[in-house]
């Protein structure tokens, strides 16, 4: 490239440069103007924007900026403005469609809605309108609306606005909670346990079970403390636990204790006590749950007692020991200090105390059958409770229970107990005591038998000793008497003999006869005395057994006994031959036949001797047709010196000797008789 060209180019470039520079200057000028204008615009814009922002924020603050749904409607219900939240609730978007609030009203809430709107219209404001709405998608929602009327500058209502809250969820929640509460309450109310909520010892709430348990109404219970309801004896026991709870050592404890019902009776309850503490650990509430274990406890007590009793009386045969065990166990079970066992003494028709737990009783009580509650029970055999009357005022015994001990349908005893509390004894007590009575009746009965037997044995031994002694004494006596009686007889006989001798020729026939009669009398007297002696010696003399043909014996006797001609003695059946003591068997027949002769007042007397063979014995009978014997003397005539008819021939000892011999032989003697007709003596002799 040449210089010229270069110069041209350079010149051209310079020109161009100058021109561009000029253009640039113009542009620069124009730009500045523009800039300035722009700046001005910008400013104005900003100002506008600010104003706009101010306005819209103002609007938003009122309308859109609130989270709750917002709605403005004309007074006819046509909606003119909603925010997004309202759209969300109702489903209607004003940009797309118009809607009227009337179409939102749930049919059931119609009346409420109109009356609410009227109120709104009148007062200008309506708070907490709560009702259901139907959304565009036919969903039912619960809403709560606070609304007010919008007025124009002339104070004329032109529209209404409302803030709507969708409370469907919270409504459900409330309902749910309420339902839950109802359910919970139902559970609490219907719980089988008594429940109490307490605060500072005061009962705040109780359930129905507790009112049933204690017999108080809810109102009455709310006036009380748990302590008021507790049985005083058990308070100490609770105190320890309560202290532990207060000190924070424990939050929960379970005890079995007694409570006093409104009617004064006592129940046992398993008490489950828990505390609810606040954040500081202080006791806020106490919850007490009570389970009535009275009957459970009772059953256990009964079982324990029965087990103990069975164990303790096992093998015991002494009535007093058994009774003592029984009254101790029952007193423990009944929780009384007064329990007594009486045994029926049918011989004396009374009850006799054999065991007692009552320390006040020193000497055993005796109660007549039928007297008092105990006597009544013994008579009726039916258990009884006396809870009404003061039974033993002196000892402040207000309740009494008496239960019979029955064995083989006979009341053999009565268990009785008293208590100082009124209405203390229950039907359950009766049932239990009856069970015990059944349990012990057999053993008591056998113990009674044993006691009876031992008594009899002891008595027998005593009797035997006494009898032996008496027998000996009688024999001694008989001998002394016989000696003392015989001596005068001898003297009389001697004296008359002297008289006879001394007056041999002087005495006339009559005097001699009289002396002879005296001799005869003396002989009879001697015989009487010998009989007495014989009687007293019947069982003493060792007998010699020999073969005795009774037919021969009777025939011999006919010669011995003076048998008047008008009296006939007959043997009806051939008599047996016995191996026996001849003297004794002869004495028996001799006495009985003599009696039959002596007491025969008939013109034609008849004495019949008969025998019946039995398997192990002979039964003899001696029948006469004499004067007969009154039945009331049947026992008496066998007693010594009990001659019914004073007779010169009768010593009054004969029948007693007969009875004694027959008793001694192991037989029996009795008689049948009819006055003025007959007398039959029967006696048996074992083979």
């Amino acid at each position, binding site marked *: 490239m040449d210089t010229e060209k270069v110069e041209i180019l350079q010149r051209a470039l310079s020109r161009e440069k100058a021109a561009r520079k000029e253009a640039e200057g113009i542009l620069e000028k124009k730009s500045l103007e523009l800039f300035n204008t722009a700046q001005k615009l910008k400013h104005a814009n900003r100002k506008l924007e600010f104003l706009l922002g101010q306005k819209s924020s103002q609007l938003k603050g009122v309308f859109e900026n609130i989270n709750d749904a917002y709605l403005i409607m004309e007074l006819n219900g046509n909606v003119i403005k909603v925010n997004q939240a309202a759209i969300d609730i109702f489903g209607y978007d004003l940009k797309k469609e118009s809607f009227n609030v009337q179409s939102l009203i749930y049919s059931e809430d119609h009346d409420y809605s109109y009356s609410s709107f009227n109120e709104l219209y009148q007062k200008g404001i309506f708070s907490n309108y709560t009702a259901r709405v139907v959304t565009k998608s036919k969903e039912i929602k619960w809403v709560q609306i606070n609304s007010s009327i919008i007025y124009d500058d002339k104070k004329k209502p032109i529209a209404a606005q409302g803030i709507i809250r969708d409370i469907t969820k919270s409504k459900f929640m409330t309902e749910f909670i309420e339902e839950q509460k109802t359910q919970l309450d139902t559970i609490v109310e219907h719980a089988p346990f008594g429940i109490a909520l307490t605060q500072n010892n005061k009962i705040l709430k109780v359930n129905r079970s507790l009112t049933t348990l204690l017999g108080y109404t809810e109102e009455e219970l709310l006036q009380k403390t748990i302590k008021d309801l507790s049985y005083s004896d058990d308070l100490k026991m609770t105190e320890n636990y309560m202290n532990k709870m207060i000190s924070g050592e424990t939050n929960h404890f379970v005890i079995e204790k007694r409570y006093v019902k409104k009617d004064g009776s006592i129940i046992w309850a398993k008490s489950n006590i828990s505390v609810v503490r606040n954040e500081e650990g202080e006791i806020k509430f106490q919850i007490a749950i009570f389970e009535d274990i009275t009957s459970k406890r009772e059953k256990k007590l009964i079982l324990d007692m029965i087990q103990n009793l069975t164990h303790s009386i096992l093998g015991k045969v002494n009535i007093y020991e058994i009774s003592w065990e029984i009254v101790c166990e029952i007193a423990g079970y009944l929780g009384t200090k007064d329990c007594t066992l009486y045994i029926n003494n049918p011989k004396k028709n009374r009850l006799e105390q054999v065991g007692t737990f009552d320390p006040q009783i020193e000497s055993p009580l005796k109660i007549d059958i039928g007297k008092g509650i105990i006597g009544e029970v013994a008579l009726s055999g039916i258990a009884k409770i006396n809870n009404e009357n003061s039974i033993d005022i002196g000892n402040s015994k207000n309740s009494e229970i008496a239960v019979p001990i029955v064995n083989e349908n006979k009341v053999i005893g009565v268990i009785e107990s008293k208590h100082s509390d009124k209405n203390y004894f229950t039907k359950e007590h009766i049932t239990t005591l009856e069970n015990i009575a059944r349990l012990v009746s057999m053993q008591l009965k056998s113990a009674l038998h044993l006691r009876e037997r031992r008594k009899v044995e002891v008595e027998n031994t005593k009797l035997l000793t006494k009898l032996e002694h008496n027998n000996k004494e009688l024999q001694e006596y008989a*001998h002394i008497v016989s000696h003392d009686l*015989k001596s005068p007889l001898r*003297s009389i*006989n001697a004296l008359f003999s002297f008289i006879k001798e001394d007056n041999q020729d002087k005495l006339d026939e009559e005097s001699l006869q009289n002396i002879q009669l005296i001799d005869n009398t003396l002989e009879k007297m001697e015989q009487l005395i010998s009989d007495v002696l014989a009687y007293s010696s019947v069982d003493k003399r060792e007998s010699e057994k020999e073969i005795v043909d009774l037919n021969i014996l009777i025939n011999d006797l006919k010669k011995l006994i003076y048998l008047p001609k008008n009296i006939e003695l007959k043997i009806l059946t051939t008599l047996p031959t016995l191996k026996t003591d001849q003297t004794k068997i002869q004495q028996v027949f001799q006495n009985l036949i003599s009696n039959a002769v002596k007491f025969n007042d008939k013109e034609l007397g008849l004495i019949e001797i008969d025998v019946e063979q039995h398997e192990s014995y002979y039964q003899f009978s001696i029948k006469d047709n004499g004067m007969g014997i009154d039945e009331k003397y049947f026992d008496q005539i066998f007693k010594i010196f009990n001659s019914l008819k004073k007779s010169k021939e009768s010593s009054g000892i004969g029948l007693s000797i007969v009875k004694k011999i027959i008793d001694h032989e192991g037989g029996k003697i009795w008689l049948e008789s009819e006055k003025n007709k007959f007398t039959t003596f029967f006696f048996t002799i074992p083979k």
Partner: protein
Amino acid sequence: MKELTILLIEDDTIEVMKLNRTISKLKLPHKIIEKNNGEEALEYLNSSGPLPDIILLDLNMPKMNGIEFLAVLKHHETLKYLPTIILTTSSHQKDMLDCYSLGVTGYLIKPLKYDDYVSKIEKLLAYWSINELIKK
């Protein structure tokens, strides 16, 4: 017949009369010393009076009865040799046993009838009058 000195210990007057009368009736030579009870008899035996050949002793007496008397007598050193015959109404076995065990030489039961009595006494005395007796 040998003459016997008989000590009759008997409280009953009539019994005494009976023996006396019997002896006189039978015309026996025997001599009778009468004492009313055992005590009196012992007093007599311990005194210086002549000892009897035999003793007829009643059992039932006041103060000291026959058995008691016997017990004392038969334990006495010398008096125990005196033959003693019981004369009683008691046929009681026990009495007889007691008497024989104490060493009586006879036991006679008084019969009811006086005639029987006479006969018994006659035989008794006849028996003793032919016996040899220990003399002081």
